[in-house]
């Protein structure tokens, strides 16, 4: 049963990707609906099937192993081809190294006899995220891409939907498979798919950025394959789950660091962050996919799976410091950005840093926080990205300043994106809850706590700024609002998910996370002392009364509605120092030469203090230093 | 009668003399506009060490006097004022309020003219 579901989860997206290739554009809408339903159903099926390991052995293993081999060769050849075609020497060099390593491992590494899939609660969570959010994004894309292509005179939707669906397939494989060799294949396929998607526009900028993404991820790929070789040659480990349970935890530290570096690269952590920012050139659904449900999650997925290998070791502390550093640095970087997508990108990197920091701390509370943050972050961030894309189509700009007054023109959209933002920074929503959990968990480590504290203040600033701007009641840009079901259904659905998951946070914790943390940390008896009675989320060191806050939120809205008509509102113009223009625009005022000017206000971006280039350089230096420290630590100890 | 009075004949001469006086360290104090013989008389008042120098220039009825704001920036306000009040038009104003320095479209036009 489990096996069938696993196969279904991998093959169904592949099937859909070929259907997208085969069928005409007019049918995409229906395909996407079908895909969404299949995704939801199959992922829920997996959850219902329960956890367990599935071995693939014997003849079917041989068959699959061959397919894997062929695919791996194809991947390498493809990268060779495109790099040569676009004369991208760095990727060419990297893929050459990769090819050498692959050849080496093919010849020298002992062959395994079987492969296995390991379905634990974490995999279930990831499958839910990938298949529900991922397909929702594809559904959104069917409503989005026509408009997008019309503006840019492109006609590449076949490639687009094919890559998107294939991406999901690879991601499904990645989160379920336990054998490192296969995991590596899926890993490389996601890299490749993202490469294709980033290069979607086929202009100079997108191609450069796509190659940058490819190069940085290939570096991760190289460390990944080196780690595989080391693990299998030195320790005879070929399964992910075996690393943590290995008796020689300290000894495997070097390959673990290498795997973590691969994870950092995939999750676009500090020295690698530029690929994710560059990926912004792609259409918004791609960004949403990369940022929320797929690509970057693969990195943190791997790192969390490795938690047992570094929990409560100096390496763990190094990783925690590294992650929290990325958190504060990218939050600071986001402060000076006025391009909405860049703000979101930095916010993603920062939140992934937070996840990695929590994983690094390695206490039960922290690991629970890390997994929960993956869930809540994926939903909220996906909603934010898709809304940003829709805003861009509505007002023709992704500049935060231009969104001023959006509430007047697109109330539903504004409400949805506001929900997304509020869920990122205010209680009682999930992201803040997990931030609270990780802060409490990090309190044992001063450096990590201070980084988290600073980062969280910065986060508040850049989101509140944006939130205030869209909710302000002055419209500066012309807006064309079009309500399409295939765009608004996914948005509303995600908004609903935010609220529902935040309300159901405790059942989610109980069902998915608690057992997972127990297995990961191998602490059968001392389960994380978190309980959830009375609408409180209580740990040994604090309590988060999310239910009360939900009630108070609802109460506030009720009070507002009740009192709204007690004092009849009398609309009036703005205070313009007495120089209003009543005929044309409420924000106009008469100036010195007798004509009218429009008043406008831009937010504070602190570009001089939080200057992007300066901070980025600083971030590079410190993050590379931190990684080197981790490596040295591992080698020396 | 005012002391240090200089009669100026042409506008180019005026600009030249004002420029010379500026180089000589004179400060622009003000300019006075009077109605005279259908046209206007402009009296430029310049000051150096508490001693005033006055330049008189007669603006013919349809003449557009040259603005002094290129030499002394501060001349722009008084010149704009005379555009409002006397309906003169100065050429080359640094900021031209187009007759709306003080007056609005519904207020009396050129009240001093």
């Amino acid at each position: 049963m489990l096996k069938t579901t696993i196969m279904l989860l991998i093959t169904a997206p592949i099937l859909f990707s070929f259907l997208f290739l085969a069928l005409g554009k007019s049918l995409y809408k229906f395909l996407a609906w079908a895909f969404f339903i299949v995704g939801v159903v199959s992922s829920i099926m997996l959850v219902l099937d329960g956890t367990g390991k599935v071995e693939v052995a014997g003849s079917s293993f041989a068959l699959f192993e061959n397919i894997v081999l062929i695919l791996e060769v194809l991947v390498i050849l493809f990268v060779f081809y495109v790099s040569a075609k676009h004369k991208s020497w760095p990727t060419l060099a990297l893929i050459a190294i990769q090819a050498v390593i692959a050849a080496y491992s093919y010849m020298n590494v002992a062959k395994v006899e079987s492969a296995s899939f390991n379905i634990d609660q974490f995999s279930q969570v990831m499958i839910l995220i990938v298949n529900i959010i991922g397909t929702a994004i594809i559904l959104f894309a069917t409503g989005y891409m026509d408009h997008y292509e019309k503006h840019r005179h492109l006609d590449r939707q076949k490639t687009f939907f094919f890559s998107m669906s294939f991406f999901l397939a690879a991601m499904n494989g990645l989160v379920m498979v336990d054998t490192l060799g296969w995991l590596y294949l899926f890993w490389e396929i996601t890299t490749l798919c993202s490469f294709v998607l980033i290069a979607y526009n086929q202009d100079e900028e997108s191609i450069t950025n796509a190659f940058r993404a490819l190069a940085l991820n290939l570096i991760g790929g190289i460390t990944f394959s080196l780690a595989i070789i080391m693990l299998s040659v030195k320790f005879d480990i070929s399964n992910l789950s075996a690393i943590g349970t290995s008796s020689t935890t300290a000894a495997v530290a070097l390959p673990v660091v290498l795997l973590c570096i691969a994870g950092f690269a995939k999750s676009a952590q500090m020295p690698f962050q530029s690929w994710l920012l560059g990926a912004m050139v792609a259409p918004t659904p791609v960004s949403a996919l990369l940022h929320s449900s797929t690509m970057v999650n693969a990195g943190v997925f791997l790192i969390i799976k490795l938690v047992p290998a570094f929990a409560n070791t100096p390496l763990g502390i190094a990783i925690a410091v590294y992650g929290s550093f990325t958190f504060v640095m990218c939050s600071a970087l986001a402060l000076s950005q006025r391009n909405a997508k860049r703000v979101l990108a930095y916010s993603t990197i920062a939140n992934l840093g937070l996840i990695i920091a929590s994983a690094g701390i390695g206490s039960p509370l922290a690991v629970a926080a890390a997994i929960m943050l993956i869930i809540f972050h994926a939903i909220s961030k996906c909603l934010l990205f898709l809304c940003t894309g829709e805003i861009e189509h509505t007002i023709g700009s992704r500049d935060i300043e231009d969104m001023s007054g959006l509430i007047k023109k697109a109330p539903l959209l504004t409400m949805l994106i506001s929900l997304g933002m509020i869920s990122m920074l205010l209680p009682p929503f999930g992201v803040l809850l997990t931030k609270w959990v990780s802060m409490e968990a990090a309190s044992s480590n001063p450096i990590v706590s201070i980084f988290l504290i600073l980062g969280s203040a910065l986060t508040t600033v850049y989101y509140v700024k944006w939130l205030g701007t869209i909710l302000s009641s002055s419209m500066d840009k012309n807006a064309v609002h079009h309500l399409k079901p295939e765009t608004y259904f996914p948005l509303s659905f995600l908004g609903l998910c935010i609220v529902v998951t935040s309300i159901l946070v405790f059942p989610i914790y109980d069902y998915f996370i608690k057992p997972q943390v127990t297995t990961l940390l191998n602490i059968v008896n001392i389960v994380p002392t978190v309980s959830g009675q009375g609408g409180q989320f209580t740990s040994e060191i604090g309590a988060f009364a999310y239910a009360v806050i939900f009630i108070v939120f609802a109460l506030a809205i009720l009070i507002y509605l009740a009192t709204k008509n007690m004092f009849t509102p009398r609309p009036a113009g703005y205070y313009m120092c007495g120089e209003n223009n009543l005929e044309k625009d409420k924000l106009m005022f008469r100036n010195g030469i007798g004509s009218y000017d429009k008043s406008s206000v831009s937010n504070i971006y602190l570009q001089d203090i939080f200057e992007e280039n300066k901070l980025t350089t600083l971030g590079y230096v410190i993050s590379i230093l931190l990684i080197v420290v981790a490596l040295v630590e591992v080698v020396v100890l | 009668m005012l002391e240090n009075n200089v009669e100026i004949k042409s506008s180019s001469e005026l600009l030249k003399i004002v420029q010379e006086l500026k180089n000589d360290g004179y400060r622009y104090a003000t300019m006075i506009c009077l109605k005279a013989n259908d046209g206007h008389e402009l009296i430029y008042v310049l000051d150096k060490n508490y001693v005033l120098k006055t330049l008189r220039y007669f603006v013919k009825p349809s003449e557009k006097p040259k603005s002094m704001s290129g030499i002394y920036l501060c001349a722009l306000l008084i010149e704009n004022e005379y555009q409002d009040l006397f309906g003169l038009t100065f050429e080359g104003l640094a900021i031209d309020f187009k007759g709306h320095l003080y007056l609005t479209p519904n207020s009396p036009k050129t009240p001093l003219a």
Partner: protein
Amino acid sequence: MALAKSPWIIHVNCNSCNGCDIEVLACLTPLYDAERFGVLNIGTPKQADIMVVTGSINYKNVNVLKNIYNQIPDPKVVLAVGACASTGGIFHDCYNVIGGVDQVIPVDAYVPGCCPRPEAILDGVVAALSVLESKSQGKIKGKDVKLKGNEVPSNA
């Protein structure tokens, strides 16, 4: 009752020579301390109760005055301080002067003098307060003043 205990003023300077303005400000300073009566100079019409006008109106500030008047929430009163605000004062027949404030908005109390002493202005505020109270009881609303009024220049 509360209205009379917390009069927040907005001070609008129209064509004033500053004589009256200074005295209005002087009312707020230690020697006269209008805050004893809860008076605050609040700065935005949206939060004001009493509009204290000094100076007469001219063609440029007339719309400013009307806009501000319209932006004060009811109940509100207008206090004209000084000869200029009451009747145009010494400037009443200047070419750019329309006249006293009551030419364009309803005025509830006047303070004579050029310029009035702070005591007189305090008297004016007190007189305005009783009007404010009666307006509040009678739910009398101020009318929105139209911007395009009948102020046409004499020689236009």
